[in-house]
């Protein structure tokens, strides 16, 4: 990893510009451009006097008829104004620390203005979309947590995709044969097994970790497709495991908007919340976390103070695999309740991007997962609204967002120092 260039550029007469300030300038310009865009396309593009209705509750909820109606054009004007204001503030570069906050607020507003424009003259279930955001963020978040578990101890796991896919497959078969809970156990164990394979290849054989990951992915795709065609096509009863049903959390589940978003789901989503919080606490406030991080940052130093680097790496990579296994089970035991060839369709890789976006921190990863979940939900729900944008371009959104994220538009993130480097004990 070569250090980020910190050579300051001179601007005008002897005035130093730090990278953060340069970034602030870029973000400021982006915000101003967005302001103009929102004004031109979303505000002037909506006919005067037309209203957009956002439904804020699901059918059959306790508060059934919550809705919010706004004038599409005026909302565009207001958002455009706020964006211009934010852009101006960022361009002044007086509070460089807040650049990302301004960018985040700006992007949320743009998304909202976009929805208003797309829904103008119609009614749109906002809460349905936010709920879908949370649900769709779960596999991405779980994939990202897997990557995080491994990379925090210095092992790159690019096999998340294969781990998810194989676990989803095993979950389906075991779940169909012995019930969904057995399927869940089978999927988690499958994840652990593939985690162990990656660990052995990367730690014991010191194969290039990216190659090891790619191999596991190809193997997983080949084996699951092969078995799906050879076994599942004949034994169709092995491909209908049923699914975990949602449990509403009493009281919390009735809160408008937040209730359906967070507190009325199946077990997988609650466990994901617990995992995110638990891992964040574990990683930064416990002895296990400190040891894991030290192995990922400086294995030699960790070894010197008596930490068994190999054991820590094996344990965390296998635990990471179990999280991926859980994510795979979510796909076939909660979302669709059947296995399809290559059903993960890149979720594992999007998870990796979410891990980078979330800066290798569980809470950050969850936030990143929500962004990707939102992008997917947008793509699903806009199809229903029927915008003039072709569906193919909507489908591209999550992947484009990923590229923007890894290209560092949201600021440079620093991976663990020993990421991807095998450790050789003297």
């Amino acid at each position: 990893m070569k250090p980020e260039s910190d050579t300051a550029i001179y601007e005008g007469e002897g005035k130093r510009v730090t990278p953060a300030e340069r970034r602030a300038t870029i973000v400021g310009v982006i915000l101003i451009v967005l302001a103009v865009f929102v004004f031109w396309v979303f505000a002037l593009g909506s006919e005067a006097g037309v209203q957009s209705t956002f439904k804020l509750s699901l059918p059959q909820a306790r508060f059934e008829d919550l809705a919010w109606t706004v004038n599409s054009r005026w909302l565009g004007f207001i958002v455009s104004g706020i964006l211009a204001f934010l852009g101006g503030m960022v361009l002044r570069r007086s509070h460089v620390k807040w650049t990302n906050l301004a960018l985040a607020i700006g992007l949320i507003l743009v998304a909202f203005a976009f929805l208003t424009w797309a829904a103008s003259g119609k009614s749109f279930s906002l809460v349905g979309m936010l709920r879908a955001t949370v649900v769709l963020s779960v596999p991405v978040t779980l994939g990202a947590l897997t990557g995080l578990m491994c990379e925090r101890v210095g092992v790159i796991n690019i096999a998340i995709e294969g781990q998810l896919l194989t676990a989803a497959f095993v979950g389906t078969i075991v779940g169909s044969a012995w019930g969904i809970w057995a399927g869940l156990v089978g999927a988690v164990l499958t994840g652990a097994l593939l985690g162990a394979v990656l660990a052995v290849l990367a730690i014991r054989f010191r194969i290039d970790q990216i190659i090891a990951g790619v191999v596991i992915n190809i193997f997983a795709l080949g084996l699951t497709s092969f078995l799906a065609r050879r076994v599942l096509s004949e034994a169709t009863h092995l491909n209908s495991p049923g699914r975990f049903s949602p449990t509403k959390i009493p009281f919390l589940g009735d809160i408008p908007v937040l209730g359906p978003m967070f507190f009325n789901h199946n077990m997988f989503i609650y466990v994901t919340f617990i995992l995110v919080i638990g891992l964040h606490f574990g990683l930064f406030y416990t002895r296990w976390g400190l040891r894991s991080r030290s192995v990922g940052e400086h294995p030699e130093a960790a070894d010197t103070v008596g930490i068994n680097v190999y054991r820590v790496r094996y344990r965390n990579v296998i635990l990471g695999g179990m999280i991926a296994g859980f994510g795979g089970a979510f796909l076939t035991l909660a979302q669709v309740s059947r296995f399809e060839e290559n059903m993960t369709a890149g979720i594992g890789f999007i998870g990796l991007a979410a891990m980078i976006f979330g800066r290798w921190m569980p809470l950050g990863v969850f936030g990143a997962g929500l962004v990707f979940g939102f992008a997917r939900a947008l793509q699903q729900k806009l199809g229903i609204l029927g915008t003039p944008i072709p569906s193919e371009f909507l489908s591209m959104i999550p992947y484009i967002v990923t590229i923007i994220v890894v290209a560092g538009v949201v600021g440079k993130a620093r991976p663990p120092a020993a990421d991807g480097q095998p450790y050789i004990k003297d």
Partner: protein
Amino acid sequence: MSSDGDWGDQGYSAWYARVSGVGSSLAQAMIVPVLAVLTALIIGAVIIALTDVDTLPLWGSDPAEAFRLTMDGIFNAFKALFLGSLGSPRAISETLFAATPLILAGLAVAVGFQAGLFNIGVNGQMLIGGMAALWVGFSLDLPAIVLIPLALAAAIVGGAFWAGIAGLLKAKTGAHEVITTIMLNFIALFLVDYLLKSSIYQAPGRNDPISRPANVAAQFPRLLGDHRLQIGFLVALAAVAFVWWLMYRTTMGFEFRAVGFNPDGGRYAGMSVAWVYVSVMAVSGALAGLAGANQILGLEPYRGISNFSGNIGFDAIALALLGRSHPVGVLFAGLLFGALKAGGREMQGAAGIPIDLVLVLQALIIVMIAAPELVRAIYRIKTPEQEAGTTMSTGWGS
């Protein structure tokens, strides 16, 4: 990428020797790949036996009969694999036909490997290159001798452009090419779906994503009468020669390999690493684009369809590893995989074994090539003094 700015363990001369490829022996280079392929086939046989749903229950009641049936199943599968790949002139034509895009795509990955870049985006580059070639193929009305080279040039430009995006992102922002190229694959997939339904490409009178066919002049002429082998194979052979010349006989190729071996070393030697990343990706994408053109102008129905690149981009990774990223190695690995593919199709048709088994075999082959210790442990071969493994970038480098 490697964080240490030194020249490796043995200093500058050893670094130079490894980059210039001096001192590798053919027999030693061959033994691991051969054993890897053999082992993969044996494991494939075990998988076939274990997934024989009809025979499995028989093992309890009549093991002898079950054994006979299982052996029959494996024998039939491998017989079909052999007959489908080498058993007749038609089969050999099929093997070479299947090898054509694999060789081109494998070269694309190999060029990246040699420069330390992992191009997983060959599928997307094939899609973009193929669509560019197709556009030339149906919109220009020229004789074949002009039209085909033009279409190939369009494929080169299209593929190089799409891969160049990832190269540029890596050079300018440090975005890891593994993630960007995979994402570009998905974007290309949707873009092609969109284009196939647009008025420029879509076949008149159709509602599904399918393009109009390329002009007859743009369709690759066949080489052996009715058999499917066409001039794309000659293009692939030319590409092998070109890549060999580029990598081992030009300054540019030397820079590619030097940066791949040690980016810091290359930087200290005065090379522009950023420029190398962009140009390596462009060359890699150009080769992938040719593979894409082959998948449209080289086979029936000579039209663009959704995801016409299939799985070739991933086969290509296995192939480049098997061929040790050397163009001649890639050629032979491509012929082997072509044989597996042609035979696999026969195996699916005649013996009812899904062709996805070939993917499993490929994964097994790569893992054993990448971890030669594994093969040596199985066959108890002595470890040679120095193993020239594949050098790959690690970390999400900036």
